[in-house]
């Protein structure tokens, strides 16, 4: 990576981080929902899945925009790109699944199973660049940062500011989406009661 183009890294990687965070919340929320049956966990998982799909979409759009001038192609079926696409498809499937049944408990339980099983792919996406030979850059690890990863301190500072900004954006989107879900539940209850 070099020149101006490497700056895509400042939003491509934080968007991937926000997606990982979202899918970890889907995983935990799904476990909690299956254990307790409480609607709040289902709403948490559903909201996180939707936002995770948004961030993964951004990753899958910005990645090829970087790859076209650097690799000379938009897409390569290598481990990182393919597993990322599978992750996106899994959670799009999770969201589509929620519209299949009118019984919220049945839908919630089914979605929770997908939310738990789908998370298996998340570590595969993350470690794919280490486990298999791929074209995708490895990205900085704590060990590579200690040895000097090629990122100077201004670049590292910009990266961590960007990471913090995406994390805050994720938290705000989660709060907004959860309050929308609560409003939806309230309207549904009032409609049933009237």
């Amino acid at each position: 990576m070099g020149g101006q183009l490497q700056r895509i890294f400042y939003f491509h990687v934080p968007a991937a981080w926000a997606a990982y965070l979202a899918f970890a919340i889907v995983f935990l929320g799904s476990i909690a929902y299956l254990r307790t049956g409480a609607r709040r966990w289902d709403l948490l998982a559903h909201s996180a899945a939707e936002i995770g799909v948004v961030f993964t979409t951004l990753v899958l759009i910005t990645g090829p925009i970087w790859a076209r001038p650097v690799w000379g192609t938009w897409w390569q079926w290598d481990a990182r790109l393919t597993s990322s696409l599978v992750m996106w498809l899994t959670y799009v499937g999770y969201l589509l699944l929620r519209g299949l049944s009118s019984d919220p408990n049945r839908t919630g339980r089914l979605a929770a199973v997908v939310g738990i099983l789908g998370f298996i792919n998340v570590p595969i996406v993350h470690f794919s660049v280490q486990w298999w030979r791929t074209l995708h850059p490895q990205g900085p690890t704590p060990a590579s940062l200690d040895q000097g990863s090629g990122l100077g301190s201004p670049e590292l500072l910009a990266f961590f500011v960007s990471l913090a900004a995406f994390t805050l954006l994720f938290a705000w989107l989660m709060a907004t989406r959860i309050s929308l879900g609560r409003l939806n539940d309230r309207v549904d209850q009032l409609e049933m009661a009237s």
Partner: protein
Amino acid sequence: MSDIVWLFIAFLAVWVGLGIYLFSLGTRQKRLERRLEDIEPRS
């Protein structure tokens, strides 16, 4: 195309993507508020 153009396209894609999602959240919220207004005078 120069690197800066590709960077601009990627930057634009991020903002457009987030903008579309925020717009969809806003639209859903307005629709729910309208449904709520329709129900509340009855209840």
